[in-house]
């Protein structure tokens, strides 16, 4: 509901600079290898690259042919090769093979490797043994920025795998943003990786002896959120439009491939989804149910505008054609595309019992009818419906219930292996290690322990008991956290999704995303005071630092700009929820994340695929 005297959200700083910077850096690196050259690009760098450069820019800097880095070696006749790759051992071997093959056949060429986001130590160790001619080059990072999202390469859940190399990339991104738009007045964060990134960034700042003095800060505060803190939200089915599009078609670097079923023609179209798309920008954050109404309103308006043609005289017609027609046509295209997408989503969702699934999901979140949900999951597995969905539901059950009852764990695991293949034994091991899918310790019914603890919240001893539990194995404590923060909205009557009253609308009014709730609370309190209990349940690693000089220097407008950094991925639902919060509170959220994620991506990262 609109708060009285609501301030308008401030404008976001100009992020076009980031794009220009990245492009300039790329050009600089390309020019370091003067003359005609062939460029080899790794597959997952192509989309980000498209966002900052195009072929004509590459040609201007003497790139002759473009190749994709793949298993097949290149047949090129060029004297100079330039590689644009991720720092991965596999890719390094590919390059080394090319170099060695050249060496064997007595060809001499010049090679240059550009790493994105940066050179990483293990990666360079490969080829250094292979060729004396190899010239390894400096880093190139590509923040592909749209109005509000800067997409760093996807670190996915790698962070939790004990591989902390990506933290450096995050710290450097923060350094860059700080130098362009900072200094940030306040920094908050929670989670181990968040803290590490923050500290590393501070160290970088110290070393570089910041030259940002006297600039006008454009970003008031930053919040670092570790995915580790909230897996639940990432595992939920998304129901805001952009989230649904991502779940259904997979948005890659801000663009999506709409197949023939959407375009109602025989070809697929790649569509850039951003604020420039006038239709999309108005529905991206809406709950799916409001989208239909909007689209039909829009198409009626469009019809009316076209109808105005009738009864125009020649001059008016000329005006109409020269001024309005183009815009109308474009709008028409966009409308039919998004209507097609909606239809396709509906078709897929009705086919896969989405209704029932959402119901099961909501009961899991609310802690209601657990038995029923468990048998729903079981049946889902038995019917061999999507392995990723089954896994997701099991994880959701495990996190919300602090682990599965041993009997259920065994039986679900056995049935999963029988339905989807025995090699998923490895998947279960991965999930257990990360704590996404665990088994309650025998004899310990956690709900009992939990209720005992929550009765004694004020009691210090109780705190110690749960600490002891925490140290044994990481517990999600979701139920207790949810109670403390009021994540399950209590309301009388129907939740009006068209007039959302809180962030819960992104999950049909059934659940306020934990990550966003934490951000809201901390921003409101300007720190963690009063959230001690929640922190204990979340396992801590929080920080809150304020830089008073920067804070005083910032204009009131800038103070209301918040940079939300998600380490390990951020979902479109969370983005929508925070944008909603921003509208309510008159502040602007800017998002920086290692990757846009969703439940399927998280699960796939954990899943052990068949070779």
């Amino acid at each position: 509901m609109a708060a009285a005297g609501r301030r308008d959200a401030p404008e976001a700083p100009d992020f076009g600079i980031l794009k220009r910077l990245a492009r300039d850096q790329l050009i600089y690196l390309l020019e370091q290898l003067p003359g005609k050259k062939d460029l080899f690009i790794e597959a997952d760098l192509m989309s980000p690259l498209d966002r900052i450069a195009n072929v004509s820019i590459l040609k201007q800097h003497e790139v002759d042919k473009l190749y994709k880095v793949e298993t097949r070696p290149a047949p090129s006749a060029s004297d100079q090769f330039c590689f644009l790759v991720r720092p991965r051992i596999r890719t390094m071997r590919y390059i080394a093979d090319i170099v060695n093959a050249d060496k064997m056949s007595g060809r001499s060429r010049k090679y240059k490797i550009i790493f994105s986001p940066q050179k990483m130590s293990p990666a360079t160790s490969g080829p250094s043994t292979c060729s004396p001619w190899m010239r390894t080059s400096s880093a190139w990072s590509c923040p592909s920025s749209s109005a509000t999202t800067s997409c760093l390469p996807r670190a996915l859940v790698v962070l939790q795998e004990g591989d902390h190399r990506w933290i450096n990339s995050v710290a450097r991104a923060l350094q860059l943003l700080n130098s362009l738009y900072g200094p940030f007045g306040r920094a908050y964060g929670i989670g181990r990786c968040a803290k590490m990134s923050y500290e590393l960034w501070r160290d970088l700042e110290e070393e570089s002896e910041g030259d940002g003095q006297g600039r006008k800060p454009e970003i008031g505060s930053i919040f670092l959120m570790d995915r580790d803190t909230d897996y639940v939200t990432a595992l939920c089915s998304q129901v805001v439009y952009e989230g649904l599009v991502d779940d259904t078609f997979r948005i890659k670097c801000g663009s999506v491939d709409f197949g023939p079923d959407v375009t109602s023609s025989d070809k697929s179209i790649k569509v850039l989804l951003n604020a420039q798309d006038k239709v999309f920008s108005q529905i991206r954050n809406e709950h799916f149910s409001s989208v239909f109404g909007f689209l039909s309103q829009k198409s009626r308006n469009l019809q009316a505008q076209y109808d105005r043609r009738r009864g125009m005289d020649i001059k008016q017609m000329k005006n109409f054609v020269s001024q309005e027609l183009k815009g109308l046509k474009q709008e028409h295209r966009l409308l039919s595309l998004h209507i097609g997408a909606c239809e396709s989503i509906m078709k897929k969702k009705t086919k896969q019992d989405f209704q029932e699934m959402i119901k099961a999901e909501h009961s899991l979140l609310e802690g209601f009818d657990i038995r029923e949900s468990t048998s729903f999951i079981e049946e889902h597995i038995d019917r061999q419906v999507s392995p990723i969905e089954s896994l997701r539901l099991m994880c959701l059950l495990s996190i919300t219930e602090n682990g599965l009852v041993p009997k259920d764990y065994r039986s679900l695991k056995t049935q999963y292996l029988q339905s989807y293949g025995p090699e998923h034994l490895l998947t279960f091991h991965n999930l257990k290690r990360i704590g996404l899918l665990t088994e309650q310790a025998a004899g310990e019914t956690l709900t009992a322990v939990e209720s005992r603890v929550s009765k004694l919240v004020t009691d210090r001893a109780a705190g110690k008991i749960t600490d002891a539990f925490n140290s044994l194995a990481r517990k999600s404590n979701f139920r207790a956290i949810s109670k403390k923060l009021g994540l399950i909205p209590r309301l009388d009557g129907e939740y009006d999704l068209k007039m959302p009253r809180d962030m819960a609308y992104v999950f049909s009014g059934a659940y306020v995303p934990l990550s966003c709730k934490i951000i809201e609370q901390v921003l409101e309190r300007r720190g963690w005071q009063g959230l001690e209990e929640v922190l204990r349940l979340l396992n801590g690693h929080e920080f809150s630092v304020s830089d008073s000089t920067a804070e005083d220097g910032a204009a009131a407008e800038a103070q209301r700009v918040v940079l939300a950094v998600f380490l390990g991925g951020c979902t479109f639902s969370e983005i929508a929820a925070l944008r909603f919060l921003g509208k309510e509170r008159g502040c602007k959220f800017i998002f920086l994340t290692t990757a846009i994620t969703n439940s399927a991506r998280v699960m796939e990262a954990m899943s052990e695929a068949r070779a």
Partner: protein
Amino acid sequence: MSRARADEEEYWHSSKFRAFTFDDEDDELSQLKESKQAVNSLRDIVDDDDDDLERVSWSGEPVGSISWSIKETVSSSASSLEGRDSSLQKGSSSYAAFPKQVSSYSLSSLFRGRNKLPSFQSLSDALSDTGVKNYAPELRRPKAEYKDYSNDWSPKDTVRRMQRGKVLIFLKRTLRREILFRELEVRQVALCHLIHFLKETGEQKLLLDLLRFLDRTEEVALSQYREHLNIQDVEKRREFLKGCIGLPFSAEDTSHIQDHYTLLERQIIIEANDRHLEMSGQSEIFRKYPRKASILNMPLVTTLFYSCFYHYTEAEGTFSSPTNLKKTFKIPDKQYVLTALAARAKLRAWGDVDALFTTKNWLGYTKKKAPIGFHRVVEILQRNNAPVQVLQEYVCLVEDVETRLSLATKYKCHDVVIETYKDLKDRIQLTAYKCKVERGSAEEEKINSILNNMQIRWKN
């Protein structure tokens, strides 16, 4: 549910909370259809001269984008590539083994910087060649002048060292394994990094040694088991899995591995048999429904489906019979029924479907029972285009009246709808339903006769 207090209970049940539904009969969808029609009707006006619009921003991949251009190069050079790729790939993974020089440094002494024991070379001497620059640059950092890192392997510092130092890799190359392992054991973060690194580079042997040293036996076992994924040949894979059974898994996992082995063993037998049968053309079922893929390496349930499809009537003694599979792998009833149902429904063998749910009690009466809800049965049958007569039989077994009614209406099982309304004594609904059945049909007659029946006490 103990903690659901009474008022909570009431709250949840009384709540009118009705979120948006993904049912296809929603008003919203019809709205969508309308807008689609509206937009489509405009198409004629719009589509005549839109060439200049192709390049407008919404099309994300205009001619000239990088991805587009790469596709072009690939397709143009693909033909010339075919002959060349095999020769180059072979020599690829010759990963040079680094000479492990014997060293008596401990890790701590490396990080201490200036060595305190006189008998050893000082660190700066030992590392003064180019290696320092490449592998451990912070050791020559002017600012920190050989800081003593040995006591503060905090995660943050480790990250930094991983980033810029490459220390671990240097150590891995230079230190003897035992020393490296021993030093890492007390530094968990660094250890994590090394394990991750070894996984990425595929240095399986060293990884296993490390895990063994750390006594992480289960991880050793899993890591070895993972290797089966890289074995393409089925016979070899089977042999390998056989070897995996003895690995130190938990008791539970051991049985899973055992099952994996048994399953593959079965599949090999079934595959050999069936391929022969199919080739010879003797078996009718294989002629009618040729196999689309081999059964090798498929999950158990898929195998069960396969055997319910091709070998349903076989005696329990044969390896390929469904009952044998069910017994061997202790497949739960629920899973078995679901799979068998799907397979028999696909073949439209309605008799078998019927038999699947029919049980006889001790008095000889037959009764239909299912370990899964009958609404599920109906759904599976419907998906396999079962005729209304068959569907009807199962729709009326759905216990929940609401679900039964909605299913019956959806699939046009008129008799069930009529009977249900009759049981509910709901005259209004029954009268309303009359317009949904065909004029002059037997159903209409039935409705009329029920409505005229004076014996029924209608509730409305």
